């Protein structure tokens, strides 16, 4: 009996390994077979692949859009593992495959790009959401062949907050992940967007604000969001990875209990409308736009290498998702108005994140009361 059992277990483990091994062999085979042809535009994927509804997909869409318009050969490469060496090797593979420009989505590429920009001075790189540096963060260096892209999250948060208040909500919440600069910028912009809309409408708004301290969906985050909805909060901006999913879960519970659509969620980074019916809009980084612009500049001979490019409303790099929005009254026309105002610099958004508590950092609010929960 004992022997039979252990044999069975051993067999099961071996079979799983074999199954996985085959799969990997298949993918590496596909990338190896491309050696004869060359591809000018390449994208090396971060964790996940080009249909991950997040960074990879956004970047790939921008690349494909340009490539199809101009008829340029293009291809994406998947690293075998999520580590600097594997990423670097995959970048090399892309360059051997004839790539003139390599798009690297995600901050995990900071180090691989740092290495690649020196070794391949004739190849150009677009790095999303990060700046090249060494493994120990001691040296930051952007080669003249590299274009790092960062996003001004406060403007995306501003637009989402503005839209939510213009749509008739006055009690809002912000459920952040860790208080890292990107999250804090989203949050500060969000509050100021709320205040701007409240001023225009002549109403008073209340915002409850919390950093959960993690990027995970936990019962704690769910309970927090539930308690807010229970206390009358209408919209919660779930800003920090899976934290948003806890907010969505809480909102779904509240709506089901009430039998009507009273609890809403704002998504983050990419349009999260498909993750829950409670998502009214998302504060997004328009990855495909920035990649498209970067490639355009490259082919126009104006590649802005050597310095970090910041994408904001001015260059259509951030926004609030309107295509699948679930607003009552706020329309695309309304959105375009505020977007143009933002572009024109009509709003002066405070985005210094040295102090992460909005109740003390934001002193320019007139119609909004912020309750910061530690």
């Amino acid at each position, binding site marked *: 009996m004992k022997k039979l059992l252990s044999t069975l277990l051993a067999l099961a483990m071996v079979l799983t390994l074999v199954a996985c091994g085959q799969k990997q062999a298949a993918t590496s085979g596909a990338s190896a077979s491309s050696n004869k042809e060359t591809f000018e535009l390449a994208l090396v994927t971060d964790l996940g692949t080009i249909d991950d509804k997040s960074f990879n997909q956004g970047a790939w869409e921008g690349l494909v859009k340009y490539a199809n318009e101009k008829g340029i050969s293009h291809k994406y490469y998947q690293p075998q593992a999520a580590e600097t060496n594997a990423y670097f090797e995959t970048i090399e593979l892309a360059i051997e495959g004839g790539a003139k420009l390599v798009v690297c989505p995600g901050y995990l590429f900071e180090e691989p790009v740092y290495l690649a920009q020196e070794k391949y001075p004739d190849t150009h790189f677009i790095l999303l959401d990060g700046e090249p540096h060494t493994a120990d963060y001691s040296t930051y260096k952007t080669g003249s062949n590299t274009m790092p892209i960062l996003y001004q999250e406060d403007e995306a948060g501003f637009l989402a907050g503005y839209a939510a208040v213009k749509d008739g909500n006055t009690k809002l919440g912000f459920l952040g992940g860790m208080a890292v600069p990107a999250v804090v910028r989203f949050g500060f912009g969000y509050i100021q967007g709320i205040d701007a809309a409240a001023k225009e409408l002549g109403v008073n708004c209340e915002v409850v604000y919390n950093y959960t301290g993690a990027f995970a*969906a936990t019962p*704690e985050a769910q309970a*927090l969001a539930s*308690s*807010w909805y*229970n206390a009358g909060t209408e919209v919660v901006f779930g800003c920090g990875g899976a934290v948003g999913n806890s907010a969505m879960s809480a909102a779904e*519970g509240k709506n089901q209990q009430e039998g009507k659509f009273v609890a809403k969620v704002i998504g983050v980074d990419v349009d999260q409308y498909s993750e829950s019916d409670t998502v009214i809009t998302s504060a997004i980084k328009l990855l495909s736009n920035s990649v498209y612009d970067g490639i355009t500049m490259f082919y126009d001979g104006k590649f802005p290498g050597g310095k970090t490019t910041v994408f904001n409303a001015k260059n259509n790099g951030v926004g609030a998702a309107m295509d699948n929005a679930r607003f009552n009254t706020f329309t695309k026309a309304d959105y375009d108005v505020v977007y143009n105002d933002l572009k024109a610099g009509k709003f002066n958004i405070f985005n210094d994140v040295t102090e992460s508590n909005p109740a003390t950092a934001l002193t320019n609010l007139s119609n909004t009361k912020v309750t910061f929960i530690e």
Partner: protein
Amino acid sequence: MDLLYFLIQQTLLFMIPLLIVALGGMFSERAGVVNIALEGIMVMGAFTSIFFINLTQGFMSGNGQLLIAILIAAATGIVFSLFHAIASVNLKADQTISGTALNMFAPAFAIFIARIIQTVQQIEFKNTFRIVEVPILSKIPIIGEMLFKNSYITTYIGILILILSSLVLYKTKFGLRLRACGENPHAANTAGIKVELIQYAGVLISGALAGIGGLVFVVPTSTNFNATVSGYGFLAVAVLIFGQWKPKYILFASFFFGFMKALSNSYASIPFLFALNIQSNIYKMIPYIATILVLIFTSKKSAAPRASGIPFDKMKR
């Protein structure tokens, strides 16, 4: 009053998974095998059952689907805990190490398989399991509001598991043998009890319950499963100790932990508590401080099963 009902409803969301998993841990430890793999087993149970919900989403929904998912979670837990049973009962390995190995293996495995199958590690699911109101029962004053509104079927399953566990442990022959193996396996062996068999049963029951606990934990909390149960398996071990390895105390301990968790997250919505201006960290600390205090005061006559954690070897006396 509404606030109190809300607090209780939230408490249940924290409490039920802790209760189920701690009871699972109890079965294993009372049989003499320490099971700190609870966390990993929860992850595995949640992984397969959420995957099932994800795959059958189009044509199944509601509590029928959830019940099948619970069975799948239990089965997964049993299979996964088998590794722990083999290591600690047959091979007489250090039970802490085997448990730790499983804890490290589970999330990695879940991410790996999820990525192979669907390229994304998060497994999305639609929560169609909320019970807005249980007919008739929700009309009972106070209790109806607390237990039978805005709840999950898993709450009642958790309570059922508690009752069954008490009965099995104290009122059956199997329960007596289980407890004997945890206290003095050699004496039990002399009395003709197959200690290995009982220990196997204990570990596998704990696997089944921890697997269910994983699913019960994930369903109300998120809209996807991201290969983690946020340390609730370890928390369940604390509940088990706080509950002194006895079902009725475990019930109390899990309620206490759950209530403090609920309070620490929603105190800002309760006016008089918010006015006190106590940081949420204080509320979060209380259950752990209480556990340490209980351990200090009960250490003299600790109810821990005496043979728990010691591999049973017939040759040793």
